[in-house]
């Protein structure tokens, strides 16, 4: 035995005892089973809310945690009109023609479990305003992985539709990041995402449009963002990692490398600074990045950084006017009460929507989301100036593989009022649920 292994083994002896973990795990499994969490239906069961109330309103009560720490109950009344229902076809649609097809309402990818040509089926698609579905045939496809006889699907490369639905940004099979004009069909290749094809498929790509559609950012990695040293070291194959993120001006199509390996939190409208968090070296600062890609200002961010569960564009969104930013937090109440430690997910953690002042990095409000929202909750955009769209997505690999659900569960979209915390279902999907979803939130 070498000494590294010996030392590692010594460290394992410092591990805590298992104690009653087995009993707690069984209790948790029974509770989850009772609540239907992990099943194929959207379960909005919340303790204290009767089934009758749920049937009557379709919504749970949403406690509202104010800035001063007091919790008040806000009823979960519907906001706006009834939820729009969208049927996503399992059948593979036609490929996007070279000519234009018109603006898209959304871009999405399906899991396509049980479909014979699953890779083709799970390739990113768009739904245009005229109700037609198109396959983005040249987009980077997803990867299939077999494990113990079961096949799981890894998420395809990044794609996102612009807020007005007129453009689609995505990574092509050849590794080029492109912007496609959906009205004319024109495609502008911008830069290559470094890496081998095999690694591209595993890449962690995060794509974001600014609310006004003037700019777009892509953070990417051919291996994993974690692998990227900030100084652009060379990997064992001699391959230069290159930059890990780019800012694109979609009017001039000029690109500027972003300075930190991760992560863009918000891309405001106009020329306002890009907001980033260097989650590796100093997560407690909010970085304001100028148009030349340099850091203009460092704002204290520790208060919010403690609560944000993820760093990345899927989980934070800036409002159309650039005055508010929302993020997702996860709080374990029991642990928070006992130790003030919000990191743990030891019991049943609760997801919160954080409302943040992007100019100061300070927390404005915290809204607790219903119990069915979990760590896979994505912020899909702002429905208007006062509500954000939140969707629950069950993950991209292991959970989906194990749960063996027919399609992705829980993928409906809810509108949450950032001031009151009131919540209502905005979009629901038919039998086929999106595994990934990008909404043209600027469309009426």
């Amino acid at each position: 035995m070498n000494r590294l292994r010996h030392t590692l083994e010594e460290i394992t002896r410092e591990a805590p005892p298992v104690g009653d973990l087995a009993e707690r795990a069984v209790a948790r499994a029974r509770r989850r089973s009772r609540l239907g969490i992990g099943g194929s239906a959207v379960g909005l069961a919340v303790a204290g809310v009767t089934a009758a109330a749920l049937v009557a309103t379709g919504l749970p009560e949403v406690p509202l945690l104010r800035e001063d720490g007091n919790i008040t109950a806000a009823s979960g009344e519907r906001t706006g009109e009834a939820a729009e229902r969208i049927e996503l076809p399992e059948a593979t649609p036609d490929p996007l023609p070279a000519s234009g097809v018109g603006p898209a309402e959304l871009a999405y990818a399906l899991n396509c479990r049980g479909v014979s040509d699953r890779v083709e089926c799970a390739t990113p698609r768009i739904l245009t305003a005229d109700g037609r579905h198109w396959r983005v045939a040249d987009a980077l496809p997803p990867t299939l992985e077999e494990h113990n006889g079961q096949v799981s699907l890894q998420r395809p490369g990044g794609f996102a539709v612009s807020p007005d639905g007129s453009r689609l940004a995505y990574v092509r099979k050849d590794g080029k990041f492109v912007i496609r004009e959906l009205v004319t069909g024109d495609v502008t290749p911008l830069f290559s995402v470094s890496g081998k094809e095999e690694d591209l498929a595993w890449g962690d790509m995060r794509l974001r449009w600014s609310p006004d559609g003037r700019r777009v950012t892509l953070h990417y990695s051919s291996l994993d963002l974690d692998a990227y040293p900030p100084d652009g070291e060379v990997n064992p194959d001699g391959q230069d990692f290159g930059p890990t993120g780019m800012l694109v001006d979609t009017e001039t199509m000029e690109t500027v490398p972003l300075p930190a390996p991760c992560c863009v939190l918000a891309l405001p409208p106009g020329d306002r600074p890009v907001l980033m968090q260097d989650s590796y070296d100093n997560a407690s600062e909010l970085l304001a990045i100028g148009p030349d890609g340099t850091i203009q200002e460092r704002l204290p961010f520790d208060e919010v950084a403690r609560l944000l569960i993820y760093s990345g564009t899927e989980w934070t969104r800036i409002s159309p006017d650039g005055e508010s930013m929302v993020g997702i937090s996860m709080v374990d109440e029991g642990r928070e009460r006992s130790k003030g430690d919000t990191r743990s997910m030891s019991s049943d953690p609760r997801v919160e929507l954080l409302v943040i002042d992007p100019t100061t990095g300070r927390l404005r409000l915290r809204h607790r989301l219903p119990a069915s929202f979990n760590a896979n909750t994505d912020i899909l955009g702002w429905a208007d100036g006062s509500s954000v769209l939140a969707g629950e997505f069950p993950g991209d690999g292991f959970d989906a593989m194990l749960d063996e659900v027919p399609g992705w569960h829980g993928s409906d979209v809810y509108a949450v009022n950032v001031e009151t915390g009131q919540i209502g279902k905005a979009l629901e999907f038919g039998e086929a649920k999106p595994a990934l979803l990008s909404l043209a939130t600027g469309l009426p």
Partner: protein
Amino acid sequence: MDRYEGFCEFVAARGQALMGTAYLLTGDRHLAEDLLQDVLSKLARRWRRIRPDGNPEAYARTALYREYVSWRRVRRNQELPSENLPEPGGSEDIADQAVRRITLRQALARLTPRQRAVLVLRFYEDRTEAETARLMECSVGTVKSQTHLALKRLRALTPGLGDLMTEIEPTTTGGMR
């Protein structure tokens, strides 16, 4: 039949070994408990289906690594240790077992979760690169790159532990067995 029959016995028999790995991965006692509980909860929910296959530990270990790596985004914001690494002393100081253990543990905490997972799989569990890749749902090339970067970073963080890295360096590209 109770759908969880045999589950508690399994945890009693193999739970501590799994906890050891969880602790190596997280470097934190509370987080190790949390991680293992998450994994055991998933295992319990699927116990009836997994048990007839006869290898719940393989399932649990796979889940442990993947769950841990899936936590990486969750923990990015909190994982920077507050303590500074101990100043690397001379080789005689570092030779002290306890100091080496503490130094390595703190250095591991400075790695990214995926790098830590790769090191534990490769050099604690003696997994081959192919096995590690399968467990972590990534390519063999990724395992190689991550291993290289992890060792490089460990060496930079803990010059006094360079002898530990040197011992295993020749095997990092050829597999441990």
